[in-house]
């Protein structure tokens, strides 16, 4: 399990402050982040693998500074986006999963074996040679997840991974995320996704306003948005 640490993190886009002093130590296996639209959740999540770097303060993953050691950090932290279409790079399913391993020093047969077992695990084996853009929305998100996990990161950050999916596929992705041995951090508006999580953080207008067990934090969140 990795330890992610935010200390004194502030961030603005232009004049608009989006994070106003965030201090967090994330070491649990399952962490949820909730909050209203525009509250700064995605900005916070993107910082964990250095897609956004803080204006002030630091973010570290196992002691590695995301701003200065972005590449090492990204090797440990996989990121799943809301829209899998933006994350799929290669034309066919197996090629997309293999693409993640292009820079690894694995031999070709090893890559093929890793791709095969990953697709198997995500229930995509039958689609290995199919065009990725013909998959259903749920299958595309599974593929995005598979392409992240084939690199064996120690943390998976997912920013609203189920927003574009129907209830059944959302549950499928949720179950898939829950079954991972990795540390998982999920940003979501679909609160049922956080069942069984260890910790939920509520963010409002760039500040942490609750940080507790799911029941307590979601209670606070519901009264906040009521």
């Amino acid at each position, binding site marked *: 399990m990795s330890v992610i640490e935010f200390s004194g993190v502030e961030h603005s886009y232009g004049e608009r402050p989006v994070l106003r002093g965030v201090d967090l130590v994330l070491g649990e296996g399952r962490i949820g982040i909730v909050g209203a639209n525009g509250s700064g959740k995605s900005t916070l999540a993107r910082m964990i693998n250095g897609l956004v770097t803080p204006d002030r303060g630091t973010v570290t993953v196992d002691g590695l500074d995301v701003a200065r050691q972005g590449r090492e950090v*990204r090797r440990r932290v996989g*990121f799943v986006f809301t*829209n899998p279409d933006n994350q799929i790079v290669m*034309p*066919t399913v197996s090629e997309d999963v293999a*693409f*993640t391993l292009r*820079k690894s020093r694995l031999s070709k047969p090893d890559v093929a074996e890793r791709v095969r077992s990953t697709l198997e695990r995500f229930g995509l084996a039958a689609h290995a*040679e199919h065009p990725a*853009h013909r998959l259903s929305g749920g299958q595309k998100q599974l593929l995005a997840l598979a392409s992240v996990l084939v690199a064996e990161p120690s943390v998976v950050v997912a920013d609203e991974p189920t927003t574009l999916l129907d209830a059944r596929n959302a549950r499928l992705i949720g179950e898939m995320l829950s079954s991972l041995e990795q540390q998982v951090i999920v940003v979501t508006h679909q609160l049922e996704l956080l069942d069984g999580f260890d910790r939920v953080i509520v963010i409002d207008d760039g500040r942490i306003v609750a940080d507790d067990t799911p029941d307590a934090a979601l209670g606070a969140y519901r009264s906040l948005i009521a």
Partner: protein
Amino acid sequence: MIGLYVPGSTLVHRAPALAKLGLLAVTIAVITVLQEPWQLAAAVGGVCVLFLAARIPPRMVWRHVVPILWLLAIAVPVQALFAGWTAALMMGGRVAASVALAALFTLTTTVSSVLDACQQLLRPFRRWVDGDRVGLLLALTIRCVPLTAEIVREVIEARRARGATGSLTALAVPVIVRSLQSAEALGEALVARGLDD
């Protein structure tokens, strides 16, 4: 290549992509300069044998051949009017054989192996061009075809839903904006997948 790959393990599939690409270029060049009808007939026969050897399902062959037939149905009679039937049929045969060969390449070669071939091809020039980059660019270009098609389809649908028709700018603006947005998101995803170097 655009997701048209037909999986298989025949010799045609297994041949190295670079060799296939080279052979494709040479063969098409030769086909273009063939003068005698019997030579061309032999070439067309050869292409058919290759398709059989690659065990491409007839359905796929049909899908690739039909568009060419349409083209030829118009071009051959026109050519015949000006240059006579022999020359027109020669021309038709050349086009058909070349296009069929190119289709065979895309049907039996995965994009990844084309990328690898591209890198090998550019290796002698690695001081000036980064083969990996070029390969990635190629992959992204191919990937953008269905993405952009999807965006255009959605924008047209959205316009129709709002009862709007008319100007081309009204179509182009949202398409360009959406394309740029998805390009940005794709770039971000590439960084997240560790391809920022």
